[in-house]
């Protein structure tokens, strides 16, 4: 009887927690369902946009999964990888290496920069355990300062840049936009197929699929298991002989390197680099998309990534148009989608913290209950 009761309680709790866990995706499905018909976009156009954006963003968002596995929360420092990729792409376009070889070379050049930045970021985050997210967030601003120092002042004056086309007229520093025209959508167009006017960038999707396989495989390796252990409980992991600090640094380095590759894919799709702004919002949009897919700060899967890309970017495409139709002012929709991106992150962070506190509380209560029972048992024996 008693057992039955608790079971029932658990059952209803499960539905509640499930509803709570998927409240963000549900909310987005509703927003999209309202906005799509209002915006008046044709289904084909919408599909084409979503497929393009999935190819553009999925790799970047996947790079967020590994630090979550290691219990380090949402890696706002993924921007570091994006900046490494931009520096690499600036070099490659100065060397005038075009097309796929250029992309591969940029990826190779970005790796040492990403690793360097990743190790730096990982070390700082180890000094700030328990507030990784705010630290990695400030980190992205700090490194943005260094990035500007390098790109705006050192490139062309100390670091050799040959071609005037990417330099500012004053002789040093990089222009606000660097054209990647001869790299533009080279990867997307490789093996691309069209179905009813919807272009599917097969090669890009193959690379994304490979990364997914890699992440699945990686989570089963010794290192991946270690990361999970560290994410669950650092103290326990340390007692089990895992080098916690090293494992955490590796997870950040991997995330940074992958974010760098992701940024190269992103920029080849865009066809140009907005030198001083391309990376500034990328972290926020990727994190928002992941959270929209139903991930939380301590749990995220590959499924969340793809659901998130579809829902978030559908909202992103239709919101300005729907906003313009409803209110007659296109700016409202623009502001609306920015607001929603921030609100989603805020809500997810709040849910994560309240859940954490609740779990702590129930754990404490269970402990107290167990102690009480134990004491009662002893008394009974006596």
């Amino acid at each position, binding site marked *: 009887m008693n057992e039955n009761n608790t079971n029932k309680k658990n059952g209803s709790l499960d539905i509640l927690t499930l509803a709570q866990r998927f409240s963000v995706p549900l909310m987005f499905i509703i927003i999209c369902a309202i906005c799509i018909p209002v915006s008046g976009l044709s289904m084909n156009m919408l599909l084409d946009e979503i497929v393009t954006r999935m190819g553009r963003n999925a790799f970047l968002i996947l790079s967020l999964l590994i630090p979550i596995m290691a219990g380090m929360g949402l890696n706002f420092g993924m921007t570091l990888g994006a900046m490494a990729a931009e520096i690499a792409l600036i070099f490659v376009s100065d060397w005038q290496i075009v097309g796929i070889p250029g992309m591969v070379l940029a990826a190779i050049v970005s790796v040492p920069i990403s690793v360097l930045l990743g190790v730096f970021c990982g070390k700082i985050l180890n000094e700030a355990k328990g507030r990784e997210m705010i630290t990695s967030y400030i980190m992205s601003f700090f490194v943005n*300062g260094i990035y500007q120092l390098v790109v*705006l002042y050192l490139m062309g004056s100390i670091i050799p840049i040959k071609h005037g086309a990417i330099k500012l007229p004053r002789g040093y520093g990089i222009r606000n936009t660097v054209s990647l025209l001869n790299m533009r959508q080279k990867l997307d167009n490789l093996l691309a197929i069209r179905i009813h006017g919807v272009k599917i960038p097969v090669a890009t999707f193959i690379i994304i699929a490979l990364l997914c396989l890699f992440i699945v495989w990686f989570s089963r390796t010794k290192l991946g298991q270690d990361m999970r252990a560290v994410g669950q409980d650092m103290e326990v992991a340390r007692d089990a002989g895992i080098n916690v600090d090293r494992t955490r640094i590796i997870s950040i380095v991997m995330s940074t390197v992958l974010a760098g590759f992701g940024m190269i894919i992103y920029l080849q799709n865009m066809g140009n680099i907005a030198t001083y702004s391309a990376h500034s919002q990328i972290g926020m949009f990727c994190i928002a998309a992941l959270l929209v897919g139903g991930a939380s700060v301590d749990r995220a899967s590959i499924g969340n990534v793809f659901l998130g890309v579809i829902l978030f970017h559908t909202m992103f495409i239709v919101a300005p148009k729907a906003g313009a139709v409803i209110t007659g002012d296109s700016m409202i929709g623009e502001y609306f989608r920015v*607001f929603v991106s921030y609100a989603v992150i805020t809500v997810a962070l709040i849910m994560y913290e309240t859940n954490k506190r609740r779990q702590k509380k129930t754990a404490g209560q269970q402990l107290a209950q167990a102690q009480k029972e134990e004491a009662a048992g002893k008394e009974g024996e006596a």
Partner: protein
Amino acid sequence: MTKEKIMAALKEFGIPRLIITGFLLLLLIMAPFVGADLPTQISNIINRFSWNGILVLAMVPMVHSGCGLNFGLPLGIISGLLGATLSVELGFTGRFSFFMAILIATPFALLLGTLYGWLLNKIKGGEMMIATYVGFSSVSLMCMLWLILPYHSPNMVWGLSGKGLRTTISLEGYYINALADILRIRIGAISIPTGTILFFALLAFGIWAFLHTKTGTAMTAVGSNPAFARAAGINVDGIRMLSVIMSTWLAAVGILVYEQGFGFIQLYMAPFYMALPAVSAILIGGATVNKATIMNVIVGTILFQGIVTMTPTVMNNMIHMDMSEVIRIIASMGMILFALTRKTEASK
């Protein structure tokens, strides 16, 4: 022994802070040699101190109660902006409009501060990250509202459509220099906005005095050891809420004081990153994540604004490159990073 003491003092002071102070001193020494006009520079620093002081002061109550650095400053700023725009909309002019703006901003600050404090009590331990995003979401929500709200004053709305507020609104005829012109002192090229500084001093003294009352001591106790405070019978959540409300109200007043000096109301995305300079200023002044004094506010604001005003001119005259923006970012963000990596009692 003394050497150890010096080393310990240096460690306490912090390397980044040392570098920043040294950098500013270097700038001051260099200034006359590279041909920068020192009196103008000093006048600028004093002016900018008077604009920003209260925004930095708004950090103090929340740091004291253990809520961490107030990255949610934009929320208070929004209350201030609502006060400012409503004061202009309702047709108040001159110096009076400034006091009306504070008066109108107050209920908004109290309301938003209460909600914000209630939220921060729900998520103890994760305050700083959530505060950041509460600030961001509220700024982007207000972006929509600035367009939609039924403002009509021709000095504020877009000329063509007659609705929606402009991004910058001139305060000419309203409260520009409302405080600064009170008892303004001019010595040669140096002009001191005495009124603004007195207003800052008044609020700073108010906070200082408050922190020495019974409630104020309780606030410090909550910040340094919540478990002990609770055992001593202090209403921890209530005290934290009070500190958040105070911070929010100070931010609201702070932005109004900033505007009266600057001469414009800036709307839409302008409040977005306003928390970061204030946070780094108080840290440069010697505060930590869970300890801040009025002295930290004063020293920090002078140092930070000193760097902001001195770097462009000195650097420009010296190497003909304006690297001030980059230096400002690296210095202020480096300072925040440093503070976050310090291990503190409250983080446990």
